[in-house]
């Protein structure tokens, strides 16, 4: 964390702002997806990577964000851009009771309970036709047609905002509490850190960020239905992006999401015609190998700053 640490972000920022106008529509589209996943992976990392509450149901927040935007249009004809406020709000409002219930569970059981919660929400949105239009989904009118740049800068702002939120949180005392809960919840509670409360403090921005990405998805894709915004694969993609980049690192999730989106698109669109239908098999195999051999991701394994608060890692000395 020396002086040069702002240098790279600044260059990346300048490239991210200045480059896209010179790219074709297809590449702009891919970059939009990249930024969307950067925001989502960064959001997930706050709860999963820093606070240690890996959730396999974060697609719930994505879907709620998307529906927060979509339902505005569906019921009241309000522009889904207001979903940028309504989406995260809905995600947070629903996340609070979810968190209060599921944070009582630990480790694997927390993972599973979030999966169950997400599936339940999906089924409710699918069946409750009056509320969400059910499987008919919501189709909206897109604001900008062929033009991708407005969408791109919008999602770039969302990604930057999520990075900024996470950065500020992790620099504050919250960050310290999050990491101590991850490292040893009992010890953290012993030190007087109310774990459920601080998990909620991690969950709320996490749900908000992912919900914001969801609201953007609604506006950009112009169509949502429960099975496309709540599936397990979205939750899994968030986690796998973070895994790839490095959980509990600041830049890792963004890096992971970028690689994840680019790699899958590269295999599908450019290698696909050559290797045929096995492109997704190769993708899945790469995932297995990454999890097996780089369990802390590229950023996590790559450098020595393995944990942000390394000194706080509990060490065992002597007997027990």
């Amino acid at each position, binding site marked *: 964390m020396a002086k040069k640490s702002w240098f790279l972000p600044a260059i990346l920022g300048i490239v991210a702002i200045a480059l896209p106008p010179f790219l074709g529509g297809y590449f702009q589209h891919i970059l939009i997806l990249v930024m969307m996943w950067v925001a989502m992976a960064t959001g997930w990392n706050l709860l999963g990577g820093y606070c240690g509450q890996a959730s396999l149901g974060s697609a719930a927040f994505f879907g709620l964000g998307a529906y927060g935007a979509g339902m505005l249009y569906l019921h009241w004809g309000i522009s889904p851009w207001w979903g940028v406020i309504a989406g995260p709000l809905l995600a947070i409002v629903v996340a609070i009771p979810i968190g209060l219930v599921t944070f009582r569970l630990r480790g694997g059981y927390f993972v599973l309970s979030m999966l169950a919660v997400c599936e339940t929400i999906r089924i409710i949105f699918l069946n409750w036709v009056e509320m969400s239009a059910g499987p008919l989904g919501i189709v909206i009118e897109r604001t900008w047609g062929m033009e991708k740049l407005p969408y791109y800068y919008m999602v770039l702002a969302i990604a930057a905002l999520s990075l900024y939120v996470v950065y500020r949180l992790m620099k504050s005392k919250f960050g310290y509490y999050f990491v101590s809960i991850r490292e040893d919840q009992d010890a953290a509670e012993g030190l007087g850190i109310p774990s459920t409360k601080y998990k909620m403090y991690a969950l709320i921005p996490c749900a908000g960020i992912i919900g914001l990405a969801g609201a953007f998805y609604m506006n950009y894709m112009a169509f949502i239905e429960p099975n496309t915004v709540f599936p397990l694969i979205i939750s899994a993609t968030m986690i796998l992006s973070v895994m790839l980049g490095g959980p509990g690192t600041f830049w890792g999730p963004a890096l992971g999401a970028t690689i994840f989106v680019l790699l899958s698109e590269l295999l599908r669109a450019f290698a696909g015609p050559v290797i045929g*239908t096995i492109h997704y098999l190769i993708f899945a195999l790469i*995932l297995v190998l990454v999890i097996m051999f780089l369990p802390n991701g590229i950023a996590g394994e790559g450098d020595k700053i393995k944990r942000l608060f390394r000194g706080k890692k509990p060490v065992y000395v002597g007997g027990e």
Partner: protein
Amino acid sequence: MALFGQTIICGFLMGGVYAVIAIGMTLILGVMKIINIGHGHLMMVAMYVCFALFTSLGLHPYIAMFVAMPCLFGIGYLLQRYSIHRVRFVDTILPQTQVLLTLAIGLVFVEIIRVIFKSDFRSVYTPFSSKCLYIGDMSISLPQLISFGIAMAFVAGLHILLTRTDFGRSIRATAQDLDAAKYMGVDALRVSSLTFGLGMALAAAGGALLLPIFYLFPDIGVPFTIKALIITILGGAGSTVGALSGGLVFGMAESLGAVYWAPGYKDVVGFVIFLLVLLFMPGGLKTVIKR
């Protein structure tokens, strides 16, 4: 009354098949504390083995089962020994790395099967598949009844294995205290690999029992993984009797939910049970039965 009776029968018979699938899960989750999200996917692989034997040699799935089980046992053994076990004790930030690994392994198996068998729907339909017994207005599906019988045999067999043999006791001991089991001379890696294999073989049995009454495509696994997880948690991880009772209760709940609530919300019943059990009865049904 006929409706209620029919609902109960359907739930009960389905629950028996669920129990076999879940019993493999309870072994893996309860004994090795591994959450295997790939469970349903590996069951799917077993179903394709049975399907291939049915189309090439005409073997009925109930017979092909005895080929599929060793196959899956081998796959499970190798997976645990060379892949999942590796990750378990690696120092990672996410303790759930292993969960994600099984998820990714599941994806790989789905894609492999897809490359070999394509995404087409398959089924093993024999006239026998629709044979029924009738009690008044209620029908009992004969293949489901047979499945139920075989399921009970597996549950009983596994129960005996776990309580009456040194190997079974070693499995349970490893689950309860890994270090102490090592002091006793238990080779934990070998035991866990064999257990994983055994769990997979049981999933294979469940798949084979399911094949004549259901259908098959590469993405069939996920709902079954979820069902097996719910049942395992409901019954109490690591308990055969728990998995059996959990399976029956779950089958019944699904069936009642479809009739008296709405077919679309049926799965919510399972999830609600799952969350309630996790929160208020962490030991599952097992603890109630023991009392």
